[in-house]
């Protein structure tokens, strides 16, 4: 199953339309979490608006592949669960976010091999085909549940030094 999630912010219909186009050509089993403010509908995906944390977690756990906007919540969940991730960054110029930081996030995390990045329908389709042929894997060593010891220690000291 593919889990499509765009986080809790504004709609991101461009990603839904991209995956819809691909799903017309390739048979895919898709569970999608959409923004309650989106008008996008589909017969090719199981659509949900806001998902409760437990429900979101369950879909994430069941997914073989996660396709998402370049939001940190999704990327971190993917890294904790060791899921293959394809991210499709939002663009400010298209009214998809208030800044263009998702492109920077995608670039940095893509370069260190944590995620796969698609910027167009063609790139997304190519990555999905690679996933189907077994070439797209999650990170080999999933991350733990907490921040780095050094950050925890620094924060702990800050709190105590009040």
């Amino acid at each position, binding site marked *: 199953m593919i889990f499509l999630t765009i*986080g*809790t*912010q504004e709609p991101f219909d461009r990603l839904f339309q991209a995956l819809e186009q691909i799903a017309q050509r390739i048979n895919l089993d898709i569970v999608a979490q959409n923004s309650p403010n989106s008008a996008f509908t589909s017969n090719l995906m199981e659509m949900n608006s806001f998902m*409760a*944390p*437990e429900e979101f977690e369950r879909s994430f756990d069941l997914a073989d592949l996660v396709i998402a906007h*370049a*939001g*940190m*919540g*999704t*990327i*971190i*969940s993917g*890294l904790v669960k060791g899921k293959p991730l394809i991210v499709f960054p939002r663009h400010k110029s298209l009214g998809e976010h*208030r*800044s263009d*930081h*998702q492109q*920077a*996030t995608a670039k*940095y995390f893509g370069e260190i091999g944590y995620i796969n990045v698609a910027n167009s329908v063609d790139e997304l389709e190519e990555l999905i085909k690679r996933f189907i042929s077994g070439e797209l894997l999650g990170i080999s060593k999933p*991350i*733990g*549940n*907490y*921040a*780095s*010891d*050094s*950050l*925890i*220690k*620094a*924060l*702990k000291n*800050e*709190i*105590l030094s*009040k």
Partner: protein
Amino acid sequence: MKVIAISSIGGHWIQLLRLRPAFAGHELVFVSTNESFRSMVPNSKFYAISDGNRSDIKGLLSCVTQIFTIIRIESPDVIVTTGAAPGLIALIIGMLFGCKTIWIDSIANCEKLSLSGKIASKFANRVFTQWEHLKTDNVSFKGNVLK
């Protein structure tokens, strides 16, 4: 110490939860912008507030009122936030109440500090970036939420 840990929903909240070991041994109050997150912090007090962002003035104002009330009632010693706008509001109000204020910029901001983080760096007691190349004299780098 009494600590308020506050953030917006989504990635900010996930990052805040990954800092939990730093709050061990303190009285902890979580604040976020979605009621459904209460279930994720069953052992702590939790407040849900309205979401506010730069393009939603009405939401921001209601956010200010609610955060002011929570800080007045709880009177924390320390306020920690991972962003975004509600976290900045909490640090500003917290500063007025004499709380220690700590901003941890989201790991999503890998090319420059967020706008809110920049504002926080002008007055907060401590500002952390999660990227070494972004540290400056008043923005510290001590690691990130991923490891």
